[in-house]
């Protein structure tokens, strides 16, 4: 190799020859159409995915809400049932106004009638004191607006003249319904 020879040999360029393939750059219109179609497909896909996501989120939130409802209703039901079933001659009538606020539907009237017509008179005349305690409670079914429970309750009754209270065990089904944001008892019945 001599030092005068060029490092890179250049070929003579034929200017008449087209240096590039023109097909890929020339037609502007055919390219625009697939892009728009592709965008439309992508939009539809994104929309369907968004709908699916919303549906899943709603399902999951409802599941969580049902668990929350179950816990909230359990707390209210256990506290209120204990008080509904417990009374003393002195408080059996005076507690009724407060207790009525915890009840709804047919059970509101049923309970009011039971206390007014039967329980109050017996409690006062025979000096009966009843103390109820919930020994176990479980949830049978729960939705966001209605919770059904099973309660095991021990009821001890003390009458004037008898020193020892009588204790009875019972099984009670309670239904609580959400009314204007509050859990109210709509059913309370022995099973």
């Amino acid at each position: 190799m001599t030092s005068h020879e060029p490092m890179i040999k250049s070929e003579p360029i034929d200017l008449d020859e087209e240096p590039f393939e023109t097909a890929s750059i020339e037609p502007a219109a055919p390219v625009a159409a697939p892009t728009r179609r592709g965008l439309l497909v992508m939009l539809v896909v994104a929309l369907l995915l968004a709908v699916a996501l919303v549906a899943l989120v709603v399902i999951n939130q409802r599941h969580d809400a049902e668990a929350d409802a179950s816990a909230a209703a359990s707390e209210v039901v256990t506290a209120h049932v204990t008080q509904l079933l417990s009374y003393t001659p002195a408080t059996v009538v005076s507690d009724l106004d407060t207790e009525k606020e915890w009840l709804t539907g047919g059970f509101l009237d049923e309970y009011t009638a039971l206390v007014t017509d039967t329980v109050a008179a017996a409690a006062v005349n025979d000096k009966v004191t009843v103390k109820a305690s919930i020994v176990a409670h479980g949830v049978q079914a729960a939705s966001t607006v209605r919770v059904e429970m099973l309660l095991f309750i021990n009821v001890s009754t003390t009458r004037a003249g008898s020193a020892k209270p009588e204790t009875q065990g019972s099984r009670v089904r309670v239904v609580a319904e959400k009314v204007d944001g509050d859990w109210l008892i709509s059913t309370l019945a022995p099973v």
Partner: protein
Amino acid sequence: MRLTRIPLAVRALVVLALLGAIAWQGVEASADRRDDDRLQEAVAMARAQVLDITTLDSDSVGAKLKAMAARTSGDFQDQVTSIAATFIEIVREKKVVATGRIDGVGVASSSDRDVSVLVASTAVVTESGKATSTTRSYRIKVSLVRAKDSWKINGMEFVQ
């Protein structure tokens, strides 16, 4: 801004993010569903156990106890097996005929591993030599524990 101006990469990212979120929520939904199904299995098992102990006679008592023992595990299984022979003997000797029913069930507590089910049941029991049947109401708590792919009962008690 026209949608066509949004770069392809951004659009792809949106779709990918949606797919990711769907996968996450989907996993959660399917876990919730699995938990619900498992809880129902536990409740069904507690009911079956209480029905077996409250519904039996001289002929069926052996099979009933076998079925009950198969649902149990651990110390409780030992307890059930150890009293089985005596129990069968008494039922056959007294010609006990018991017909039980479930009056109500409730889940007292539940987790992935443990479930506690309350069962209210009633049994009508007749014995030889007694003219009338007796009706007994029960308050039973059934404890279950998750073992491999199924629930096992590891405790049953009368709620006092």
